[in-house]
């Protein structure tokens, strides 16, 4: 599939609006005064070396600061026009946002239960509804054909690449509007990585994706717009093509994508 050019900036609705986002762990500042917009149905790439605040950014979006007492978040994150800090039901917020981690997490449950867990916890009891969700999510994550005959076997016994696709299926199980991917390909072989990248291009038609990645070329392949984070600062937000053709405001961005540091 050929990825469509990013829609003109004026027409696409803004899905996530971040203003002056600062994240601290105790006295350590992980991210400082970041402002950016993420549009509906785009893949928004975030690149940057280790310790640049990429993961903290994703955690703040999903309000994980509420689960970690040392994490403090200031500034505004508007999701669908509403500040995530004003959502009274955080569990509902998180069910609208799917998350995939760097290392695959197959929960020690059956493949079926891995995917059905979240819908079950939020009240879906009907067996045929659950069957439908499990099949649809595994299909979308390009895992269905490999596991459809052994849905009862343990998710944690799958291979790394399969577990990562299981994690994606699980993240899709509540029909999220936003999918956060944190360096998903770090523990996955190149073939599976390409499979997942195809999945993401397909998913983009329906949901918004934020892709944190260490692989600059992966951002180039997938992202419509890309932000460059460096030691807690957002150096640059630009159309991905501009970033790679050198049309950047800050020379450090060019140096990073060209591999001169980081």
């Amino acid at each position: 599939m050929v990825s469509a050019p990013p829609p003109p900036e004026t027409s696409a609705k803004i899905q996530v609006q971040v203003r002056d986002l600062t994240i601290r762990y105790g006295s350590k500042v992980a991210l400082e005064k970041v402002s950016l917009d993420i549009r509906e149905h785009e893949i928004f790439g975030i690149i940057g070396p280790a310790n640049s605040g990429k993961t903290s950014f994703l955690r703040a979006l999903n309000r994980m600061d509420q689960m970690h007492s040392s994490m403090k978040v200031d500034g505004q994150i508007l999701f669908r026009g509403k500040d995530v800090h004003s959502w009274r039901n955080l569990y509902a917020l998180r069910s609208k946002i799917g998350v995939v981690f760097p290392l695959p997490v197959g929960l020690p449950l059956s493949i079926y239960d891995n995917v059905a867990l979240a819908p079950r916890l939020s009240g879906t009891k009907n067996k045929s509804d659950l069957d439908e969700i499990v099949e649809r999510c595994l299909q979308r994550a390009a895992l269905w054909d490999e596991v459809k005959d052994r849905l009862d076997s343990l998710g944690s016994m799958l291979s790394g690449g399969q577990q990562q696709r299981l994690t994606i299926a699980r993240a899709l199980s509540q029909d999220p509007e936003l999918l956060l991917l944190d360096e998903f390909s770090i523990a996955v072989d190149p073939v599976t990585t390409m499979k997942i990248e195809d999945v993401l291009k397909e998913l983009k038609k329906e949901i918004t994706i934020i892709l944190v990645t260490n692989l600059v070329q992966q951002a180039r392949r997938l992202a419509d717009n890309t932000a460059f984070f460096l030691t807690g600062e957002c150096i640059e937000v630009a159309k991905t093509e501009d970033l790679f053709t050198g049309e950047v405001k800050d020379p450090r961005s060019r140096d990073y994508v060209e591999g001169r540091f980081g």
Partner: protein
Amino acid sequence: MFEATSLNRRNRQKEGLVRYLFLLMTLLLILPVLIILGVLVAKGGPVLSMDFLFTYPTDGMTAGGIFPALVGTVWLVTVALLFSVPIGVAAAIYLSEYAPDNWLTRLINLAIINLAGVPSIVHALFGLGAFVMFFGFGTSILAASLTLAIMTLPVVIVSTRESLQAVPMAFREACWNMGATRWQTIRHVVLPNSISGILTGVILEVSRTAGETAPIMFTGAAFFLPFLPQGIFDQTMAMSLHLFVVSTQVPGVPEHLPYGVALVLILMVLTMNATSIAFRMYLRNKKKW
């Protein structure tokens, strides 16, 4: 050509020496256990019989069996577990899964460790003051079991907390990120994967409770009773106290009798420990990650 230097040779000699030193220490550790068991089996073995287990003591406790003490110990342990397991497991879940890492939590953790270090006779006095007198339970199974429960709570809490923390943090993060509450995460992912460790801890606690003497001496265990307890407000005989009594308090007890009582007590404890180990092995084979 490689030549061993004198440094190489010395390191090798030291390695051998250290290894045998540690082996010696391990053997020294096993020796007393073997001697105890050997003496108990040799001296107490001949008295073991169905009659010994299931009849009452007779002739001023110089003959007969140990039935009321056996039943009493089962009572004491069971009632103590009914209190210590729910409280201990709930407290451990709070400390491991909910408590923020602040000075209060650290203080509570410190208190738990210290509680484990309180001598059992001090627990006994506390039980006498609190349960027997203040709450007015009298010397009863209830008062004795509550004392035992408080004494064993730290063991339950620490072992439960360790089992909970053995479950990888990534599992919790994955659940939270899906919108699961802490309790849903605990209920569906953390507990099912730590239950083997929790149960092992509980069984080890049972064996500890069964052997305690001081805490029940003032609070509920009787010297001699010619009948079985009918409820938790009755006094009872207990194996551990019975062993103390026939060994030191009653004149004219034949030599083999106390060894028989001790052998039964230690067999009870070992059986429970063995169950615990077998159970742990069974569940470990089913481990899912």
